[in-house]
């Protein structure tokens, strides 16, 4: 009898201990779950921050001060070219013969080509490149006109000068746009 009683008591005690361990184990599991969820949430937000930081919008190339300076210098050179031609020469006595201006035409065409190539290789720079293409196209066209006629009327000089002033204004506006796009921290 005593033997059965003690076995019964032992069994009851064992079940009690087992139940108590199970209860503690459940609490620990729940705590682990909460900690894991918090960790995963933090990890997800950290990944989102990393993703957001790499998703900055880039629609324009980076600003290049050297190109800005070249735009200004080339604009001034062309303006001086036509203004000098208008003020210091005339159509009489081959004063405006093409050969008198060949060197200047070449020098300026080299600058315009250089501007075009520098813009072409920059990524996201389709608009500024097109402005340079148009400018070079006009330069070559008006140079050829001068070459074929071997002279240049005052009226055409005025028109040419106005055309390049306007084209370089457009070029400067585009350049300022690129500077503006690079002005906020990326």
């Amino acid at each position, binding site marked *: 009898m005593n033997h059965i009683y003690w076995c019964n008591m032992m069994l009851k005690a064992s079940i009690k201990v087992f139940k108590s361990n199970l209860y503690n184990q459940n609490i620990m599991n729940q705590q682990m779950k909460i900690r894991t969820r918090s960790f995963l949430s*933090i990890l997800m937000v950290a990944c989102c921050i990393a993703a957001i930081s790499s998703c900055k919008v880039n629609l*324009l190339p980076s600003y290049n001060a050297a190109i800005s300076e070249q735009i200004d210098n080339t604009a001034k050179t062309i303006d001086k070219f036509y203004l000098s031609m208008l003020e210091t020469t005339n159509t009489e006595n081959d004063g405006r013969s093409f050969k008198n201006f060949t060197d200047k035409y070449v020098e300026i065409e080299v600058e315009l080509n250089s501007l075009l190539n520098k813009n072409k290789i920059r990524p996201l720079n389709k608009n500024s490149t*097109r*402005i340079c293409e148009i400018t070079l196209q006009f330069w070559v066209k008006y140079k050829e006109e001068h070459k074929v006629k071997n002279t240049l009327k005052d009226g055409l000089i005025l028109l040419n000068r106005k055309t390049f002033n306007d*084209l370089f*204004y457009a070029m400067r*506006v*585009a350049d300022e746009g690129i500077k503006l796009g690079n002005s*906020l921290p*990326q």
Partner: protein
Amino acid sequence: MNIDINALVTDMLSAIKGTVEGNWEKVESTANQFLQNRKESLQLLVQLRINGDIDQDEFDSRLADEKLIVEAELNALAVLSKAIAQNAANAAIAILEKAAKAAISAAI
């Protein structure tokens, strides 16, 4: 970890509006200047033709050139517009990034 979505969206919209409003005047004034340049150019062209300083072929050729000049000016305006759009988008993204960083700091 709490992010007030409504407040965040309001802040992002304010950032976008502030960026665009400040720069829209620049686009408008530039577009006006382009139009003024075209007007002056056409007036000069017509005047030179009337005075006989250029012949009809030269007039027609220079008139045709005006189309390409307009194309160049539109390209310039496109760059300005892209700059404004880029700045507006990145201003909004900066607000979002800041809110996310604040939330994660609070959680840790």
